[in-house]
C-alpha cells in the first residue's frame, strides 16, 4: 500500500479532509487533477455562514452550526500547522433586504430554518438598527433592513486553501498535483487508483472531486447525484475599512477589497458575462450608493457543486466498503467539520449515525439520474 487513504481531489473539501485525517496520524495521498480543471476552491466568496443554511434539511443546519462553532479553533490550529496566515472574523453576518417583500420572505425563511434550533442567534433588523451597526456606511434608500445572524463570519478562502495544502504536507502526507485519476479499482484489502502517472494503492479511498465525482464513483455503484450552478463574483480595488461584518453578496476582505456576489445561473462553464456584472454592480450600488465610484478589478465565476437538496453528500459504497464520496457546496463553512468529524470518520471506515442523513440513499437515484 502507498498510503492509508487516498483522497481524489485537492480542492478545499479534499484538502480539509486530508488535513483532518493526517492530523490523526494517518498517511494520506491527495491526488489532484489538471491545472485548468474546474476549481471552486479558487472561486468562492469566503463566507463562514450559518443563516439560511439547510432550510429544508435540519441535519445540514445542525452540521453547519457545528462547523461554525469549530471554526475558531480549527483556524488557529491550521494556521499553526501551516505556518501561514488565515484571516477570519466572526462578528455576525447580514443579508440585506431591498424591499418589504424581500424582508418578509427573509424573515419567513429564517423562521423555517432556525426556529427549531437555538432561537437566539438570528434576528431581523430594521433600517435604523442596521445603520447603527454600520456607522461608516450610508445605505441606499432601497435598503429596508436585513437579517442578522451572530454566528456568521468570513475568512480569506484562498489563504484557507493554501494553508490546508501546506498543512497536509507538513503533517507528513502528500498532495500530488497534475495527477488526474482515470479509474478506481477495488482489490483485495483496498483499492488501486489509476492515474495518468501510474497506479496508487490504499486501503480506503475518498472521492472529493466536486463535479467530477460521479464520473469516478457511479461506475462502482456509488451513485452521487450532482448538478452545477454558476456563480459570478466581482471584486473591487482596495478600500479603507467600511464594512465591519460581511453580508450575503457583499463583504469587505481584510485586504480592503469589496467582494460582490454571486449570481445563480444554469451554466456549465466558468465564463463571465456583462449581464451578470451589470446586475451585481447595480445591486451593490443599491445597498451602498458610494460604491458606484469604486473600480472593479476582476470578475470571475465558479461552479457550485450541488446535490438535489443542496445539502452535502457523505456516503460509503454499499458494494465496496472503504470507498467514500464527500461532495458539497459549502466547502469553506464546512471545512472545520470536514477536518474534525467527516475526514477522521471516513479514515476509520465508519460514518457515524449523525452523518447518516447525508447519505446518497436519501435521493431516489433513478429519478435524479
Amino acid at each position, binding site marked *: 500500500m502507498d498510503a492509508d487513504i487516498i483522497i481524489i481531489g485537492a480542492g478545499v473539501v479534499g484538502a480539509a479532509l486530508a488535513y483532518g485525517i493526517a492530523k490523526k496520524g494517518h498517511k494520506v495521498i491527495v491526488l489532484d487533477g489538471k*491545472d485548468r480543471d474546474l476549481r471552486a476552491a479558487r472561486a468562492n466568496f469566503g463566507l463562514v455562514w450559518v443563516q439560511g443554511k439547510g432550510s429544508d434539511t435540519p441535519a445540514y443546519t445542525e452540521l453547519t452550526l457545528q462547523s461554525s462553532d469549530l471554526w475558531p479553533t480549527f483556524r488557529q490550529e491550521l494556521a499553526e500547522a501551516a505556518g501561514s496566515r488565515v484571516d477570519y472574523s466572526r462578528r455576525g453576518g447580514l443579508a440585506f433586504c431591498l424591499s418589504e417583500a424581500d424582508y418578509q420572505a427573509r424573515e419567513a425563511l429564517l423562521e423555517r430554518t432556525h426556529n427549531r434550533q437555538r432561537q437566539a442567534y438570528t434576528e431581523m433588523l430594521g433600517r435604523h438598527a442596521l445603520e447603527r451597526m454600520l456607522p461608516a456606511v450610508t445605505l441606499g434608500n432601497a435598503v429596508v433592513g436585513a437579517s442578522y445572524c451572530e454566528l456568521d463570519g468570513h475568512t480569506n478562502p484562498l489563504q484557507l486553501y493554501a494553508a490546508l495544502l501546506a498543512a497536509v504536507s507538513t503533517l507528513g502526507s502528500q498532495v500530488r498535483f497534475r495527477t488526474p485519476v482515470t479509474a478506481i479499482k477495488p482489490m483485495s484489502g483496498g483499492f488501486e487508483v489509476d492515474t495518468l502517472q501510474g497506479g496508487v494503492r490504499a486501503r480506503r479511498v475518498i472521492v472529493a472531486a466536486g463535479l467530477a465525482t460521479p464520473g469516478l464513483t457511479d461506475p462502482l455503484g456509488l451513485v452521487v447525484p450532482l448538478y452545477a450552478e454558476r456563480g459570478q463574483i466581482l471584486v473591487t480595488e482596495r478600500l479603507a475599512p467600511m464594512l465591519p461584518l460581511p453580508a450575503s453578496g457583499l463583504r469587505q476582505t481584510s485586504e480592503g477589497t469589496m467582494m460582490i456576489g454571486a449570481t445563480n445561473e444554469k451554466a456549465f462553464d466558468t465564463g*463571465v458575462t456583462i449581464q451578470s456584472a451589470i446586475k451585481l454592480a447595480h445591486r451593490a450600488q443599491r445597498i451602498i450608493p458610494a460604491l458606484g465610484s469604486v473600480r*472593479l478589478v476582476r470578475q470571475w465565476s465558479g461552479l457550485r457543486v450541488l446535490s438535489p437538496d443542496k445539502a452535502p453528500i457523505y456516503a460509503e459504497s454499499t458494494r465496496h466498503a472503504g470507498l467514500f464520496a464527500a461532495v458539497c457546496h459549502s466547502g469553506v463553512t464546512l471545512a472545520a467539520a470536514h477536518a474534525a468529524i467527516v475526514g477522521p470518520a471516513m479514515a476509520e471506515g465508519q460514518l457515524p449515525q449523525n452523518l447518516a442523513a447525508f447519505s446518497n440513499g436519501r435521493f431516489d437515484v433513478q429519478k435524479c439520474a
Partner: protein
Amino acid sequence: MTYDVLIVGAGPAGMSAAVQLSRLGLAVVVVDEQPAPGGQIWRGVERNKSGPLSQALGEDYRKGLSLVETFRASPAEYMPETQVWHIEEGWSVFLTSGGRARRVCARVLLFATGAQERPVPFPGWTLPGVMTVGAAQILLKSGGMLPQGRVWIAGAGPLPLLYATQALDLRGQLSGYLDTSGRPGLAALQKLPGAWRDLAGLAKGAGWLRALRRKIEFVRDVKDLRAEGEGRLQHIEWSTQGRRRRVEADVLLVHQGVVPRIHETLALGCAHDWRADQGYFAPRLDRWGETSRPGLFVAGDAGGIGGWSAAMVSGEIVALAIAARLGKGGDVEELRRQARLDDRLAKALALRPLLDALYPPPRERLADETIVCRCEDVTAGTIRAATRTSVPDPNAVKAATRCGMGPCQGRQCGYTVQALLAEVHGVPAGSVAFFNIRPPLKPITLSEIASLEDMETAG
C-alpha cells in the same frame, strides 16, 4: 452602431490599417488610450512638429507626422482617451472614456495595441525616481520633460541609446550609462550578414553608441543592479568585473527591451506561442495577421516585436485580409504582390535577428527580497516558496500569494512569475503558462457598469 472594423490602437499599425480600410469604404473606428494619435513611437508628433523638441527627437520620429495627418484626414472615426475594458463574442466591445462606459459592435476586430516595456524587477525598482527609459522618452515627447539631478540609465537595447542621445541633444543631464547587455556573443555575429539589408539602421545604432561613450561615463558588463533610498531613490549600486560600485542618484531609467501587449488576445482565448529567443508570448497569427479566432486580427508589435516600419507594413497586410473578409478585397494575393508588402516587411525586419541576439532577455537571478508584483507587493521569495511544494502553475501562485491580482492584472509581474516558476521547477520558461486573464481588461467603476443596464434592456 455597428462598425465594419474596430481597431484598438492608433500607432503605426492601427493608423495604417485604418487609412487603408476606410479608403475601401469600410466603416472603421479606431479606439486609443492616448490623447493623440501616433502610438508610443510617435507620441505627441503633432504638437512637436516645430519647436526645440522636433530636431532632437530625430528623423524617424518626424516621419510619423505624415501618417498621422493622413489618418486624421481619413473618414475613420477616432476615439482618443478611450479604454477597452471588455470584449464579448460577436463582437461587442465595451469602452470607457471620461468616466462613461459604452458598447460598440463591429464585424471584425483588429488589435494594434503595440508593445510594453518588459518589466524587469530588481531591488528598489518601486522607489520614486526609478522608471523606465520608455517612460522618460514619453515624457520628453509629450511635455518636453527631462529628468533633473543625478540621472543614470541602466539596461540594454537600442531605446536607451536613442533616448540618451536625444536627452543630451536637449542639454539634458546624464551622469552615466550602465550597460547590462554583456559582450556580444558568436550568435550575434552570425546575425550580422542579414542585418546589412538595413545598413542605415545599423550605422545609426553604432553612431549613438560612439557619441555617448565620448560624452558620459559608460560602464559595461553591469550586474546586480540595486536602487536604495528612504521614500525616494538616493543611491544605486551595481557590480562590474567583480567590483561593487555605489553612487548617489536622483533618477534611474531602466530598460530591458519590449514585449507585445497580449492581455486582450489572452483574455479572448486566442492561441499564443512562446518565442524563446525573445522571451515572450505572441498570438499565433496566419500570414494575414488573423488569430486562432476567426474575425480577430493582430497587426504590429502586438503580434511580435518588429518596430514601427514593420508595424506599418503589417497594418497594410491585415487591412487587405480584413477587406477581403468583408467582401471588399479583390485578389488579395495579387494586391499583396503588387504593393511588394512582403519585401518591405523583410527589409523592415532585417535588423531584428541581430538585435535579438545582441540583447537577449535578461536571465539574472532575482534576490528573494525583490518585489515582483508592484500592485500587491509580493516578493520573489514569496513566489518561490509558494510554488516549491506545488507545480509550475502561475494561477496557483496567484491564488496563493495575490501576485497578479491587483489592478495591473499581471502586466508587470506575469513574465517574472513565469521565470521564477521555471527556475524553481527546473523546466523551460516556455512550458510555464501565463496567468489566466480575467475581465475587466482595465478597472472600471461600478456605476459605469451599472449604467449599461438601460442599454441592455433597450437592446
